[in-house]
């Protein structure tokens, strides 16, 4: 306990570092996945390559990826950007499939009715397809957010500071409180982001509550 009280400044700093890695990655994964999912949903022949292809990203072991990325991106080995990029890719591996399935699940009858009302193809996408796929996409995004926040701890191994640094330091120097603080803060951050996602879902999709 003493250790934690004596190190609140460092814990807070690493928490911010951790958020700075994982939040942009979650956002980027979402923003990149949705257009890919739309493509997969609209162009049937592309569906399997896109969905399975991005899904395979998850099979790439994370450590080598962290090492290969600097070479591809031309960044320094300790650049936090590597971690953000790697986390984005892992997020996409989950999110593309989830978003594509969400779009596939939009009721064909409702889409047909909308077309018959005279929605243009794009008008219908923005006002019908996307909102109706929203709840299922949100469910996928929640998984991505939790998994990204947890995965971001790995960056510490590469010397990119995050809550994972509390694990590495703690193990090296035999400070259990440090490891514990890392675990607790990671879980807390994941829970907070999840809560925020659920709340914004309620706000943006008030109609979905009773249906879920």
């Amino acid at each position, binding site marked *: 306990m003493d250790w934690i009280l004596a190190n609140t400044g460092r814990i807070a700093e690493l928490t911010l570092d951790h958020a700075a890695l994982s939040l942009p990655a979650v956002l980027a994964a979402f923003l990149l996945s949705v257009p890919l999912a739309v493509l997969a949903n609209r162009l049937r022949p592309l569906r399997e390559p896109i969905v399975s292809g991005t899904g395979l990203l998850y099979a790439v072991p994370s450590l080598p990826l962290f090492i290969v990325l600097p070479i591809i991106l031309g960044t320094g080995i300790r650049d936090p950007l590597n971690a953000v990029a790697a986390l984005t890719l892992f997020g996409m591996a989950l999110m593309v499939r989830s978003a594509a399935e969400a779009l596939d699940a939009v*009721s064909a*009858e*409702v889409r*047909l*009715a*909308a*077309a*018959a*009302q*005279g*929605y*243009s193809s794009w*008008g219908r996408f923005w006002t*019908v397809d996307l*909102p*109706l796929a929203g709840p299922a996409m949100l469910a996928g995004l929640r998984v991505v957010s939790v998994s990204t926040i947890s995965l971001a701890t790995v960056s510490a191994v590469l010397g990119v500071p995050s809550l994972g640094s509390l694990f590495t330091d703690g193990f090296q120097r035999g400070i259990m409180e440090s490891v514990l603080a890392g675990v607790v803060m990671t879980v807390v951050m994941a829970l907070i982001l999840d809560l925020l996602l659920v709340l914004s879902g309620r706000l943006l*999709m008030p*109609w*979905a509550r*009773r*249906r879920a």
Partner: protein
Amino acid sequence: MGIEFRHVEKTYPDGAQAVRDISFTVPSHTTTVLLGSSGCGKTTLLRMVNRMVDPTGGQLLIDGEDIAGAEPVRLRRSIGYVMQHSGLLPHRRVIDNVATGLRLNGAARGPARSQAEELLELVGLDPALGRRYPDQLSGGQQQRVGVARGLAGDPNILLMDEPFGAVDPLVRLELQQQMKRLQTELRKTVLLVTHDIEEALSLGDQIILLRPGGEIAQAGTAQELLSAPADDFVARFLGVAQGRRRLRTSAGQDGEWVVTDAEGRPLGVVEAPPGPVHPRADPSGSVPPEDGR
């Protein structure tokens, strides 16, 4: 004038020939019913009118103009469409569902909403229901909303695909009666699809009976179909052949006329005694015939 189908054909890309050489006209301000069992091409024909389906042969004219040249989105905005499971947008309040077409045609939100409220009243719904989401309404109420949405923007043409097919029989009867009342008032050019013979007889000024394979078996008024079925198929489909639509009258105890079906089951009493003409089935529905299916 009205909607004219000229030698219309449709073969879907998978090779299924849904309709072949269909010609008929839906006269303006009247109701034409496409009647037939499932799979005989009714929906296909209906959707050609707003270019949800394009024919692979023949022509379709609205008020004399071939719609092949019409822009589909614009065409759809000028035609009302009502379908079986209402097809309401689940994420929009009822009022906004009704206002959708008005908004697509450029109306501002405020006027569109107040017009939508009037439409809800027109179809017999409390405008206060407008604040709800579609899944907070009963099936019958949802269908009414569907009709209100179809009428939004006062289109000349109303397409209805089994609009009352998914509600229970009592509600269906109510909705059909309301549709009749509305139609005497609004006089839209209506093309309505159903597999329900009673519905066709009660709502159709003209009935186009389709046979499997997507051909017209017979076209005419209810009276014409019932009294002079073109062939065996028509007679059997309408239940004329089995005598199910033959009604008899006989004198009751107090001198009133009792109507019975072919098996002698009493159906009702005639209010004005029949004249010297031999009484026969009245297709206009003043004596409700037994369920003919």
